[in-house]
């Protein structure tokens, strides 16, 4: 009961999605499953959020490592949820001027943008201390990276101003992106596509232990 029903359900839903692509009458069944998919996907968002709250509440209760920051997580959750649900004009909560909009611009945006901006520092120090042309492959990689980094900003054309109009660093960058990079990207893309096809098949046939299996 615990394992068989989910596997049968997965196979039934998965096969319906595939068959409906080729045999249109199955679209009725496909639309039904999709309607349920949307609802469950929304509840899955709530599962993730509630799980986060539970984990942090647990951390505070058991006073495990860094538990005070668990309080900050829950406070952060309440600081935006309460105004968003009750004090932001109901359905037009995301219009400019509501308190929810204010919190988005002045709390959520700086935190989220700065988390990503940290990576610029890590790239800089890694460039200095870790990126070495230690073999042929790494050398080709760094050479292409140089042409792209300088070619995508006016410095590249400024350095190669002595070359004729159509053959400057910027044009080299365009050429690399349009041809060799597209070819390499396509080989990777086809490889990943076949990988997704086989793992989707294993999931539908119930061979895949990792997918929700115990």
């Amino acid at each position, binding site marked *: 009961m615990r394992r068989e029903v989910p596997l049968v359900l997965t196979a039934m839903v998965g096969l319906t999605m595939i068959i409906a692509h080729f045999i249109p009458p199955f679209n009725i069944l496909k639309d039904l499953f999709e309607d349920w998919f949307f609802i469950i996907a929304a509840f899955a968002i709530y599962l993730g959020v509630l799980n986060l709250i539970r984990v942090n509440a647990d951390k505070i209760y058991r006073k495990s490592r860094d538990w005070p920051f668990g309080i900050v997580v829950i406070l952060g959750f309440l600081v935006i949820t309460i105004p968003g649900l009750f004090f932001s004009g109901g359905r037009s909560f995301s219009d400019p001027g509501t308190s929810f909009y204010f919190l988005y611009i002045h709390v959520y*945006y700086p935190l989220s*943008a700065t988390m990503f901006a940290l990576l610029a520092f890590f790239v800089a120090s890694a460039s200095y*201390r870790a990126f070495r042309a230690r073999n042929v492959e790494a050398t080709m990689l760094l050479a292409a990276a140089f042409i792209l*980094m*300088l070619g995508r900003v*006016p410095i590249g054309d400024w350095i190669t101003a002595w070359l004729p109009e159509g053959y400057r660093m910027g044009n080299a960058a365009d050429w690399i992106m349009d041809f060799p990079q597209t070819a390499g*990207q396509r080989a990777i*893309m086809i490889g990943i596509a076949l990988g997704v096809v086989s793992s989707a098949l294993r999931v539908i046939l119930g061979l895949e232990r990792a997918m929700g299996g115990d």
Partner: protein
Amino acid sequence: MNQENNQEVKSIWEKLLSIDRRIIFLFIAVAVAVPLFFKLSMRIPVTPVAQGTYQAIESLPAGSKVLASFDYDPGSMPELQPMAEAFFRHAFRNDLKVIIMGLWPQGPLQANIALEEVFQDEDIKAKSLQYGIDYVNLGFTAGNEVVIDRMGHSFEESYPKDGQGTPLSEIPLMRGVRNYDNVDLIFNLSAGYPGTQEWVQYAVDVFHVKLAAGNTAVQAPAMYPYVQTGQLSGVLGGMKGGAEYETLLGIPGRAVRYMFSQAVAHAVICMFIIIGNLAFFSIRKRKKTS
């Protein structure tokens, strides 16, 4: 004598390599901040793929309907928000009708931020655009790529109501818009999953609708094969793509202003790699000889 200063030269390279990481951080911070104080306008050459996105929008006759899907979060604002503002200026200047939606919950709100900025412009204010007639915001709905698949049959099944809760049937702009056949172009700003790849897979290749996109720079290279096959009309890549779009529209916005810092930052990174490698090779050569 040679042995002695040889010893000392080695220590310079090793000293250079072992400087504290925070000095490198400070260096890159200054390299990025200082150019912001200079108002240097730089010529921005336009790449063919950026031209593709611009052309796809410019070629639409007035009154055409564009489905604009905002699939990114504030983390990608510096790269994608200039594109969003440029797109709205472009669309409203050409009297296009814009249907906004988002597969990321933050997307529709990012569109509101861009609209608020664009509505300050005199020429746009003069058009006195009305919600529900010139533009509409359908908001967010859960389901990722399955939403794209379902909108191929009917928008209403995925979005029975707009972001404000008004049923689609009561919105003038949405009358006659049943699915992708009644939309002239899809414009997608994407920072990951679900994003442009899913729009190509579920909308372009199944319902044969035209798609133009703007991506964060991390994701743009992966879209080039789609441009080569024609599945994707064009892609704006990162802040540079935003600057190209602004240049094509002739309105130098924030992305153009940042390009001087971007240029200095790239030069610094290249310099770091060169110094790092020189030190690496000289230390290795030293180890081989001793």
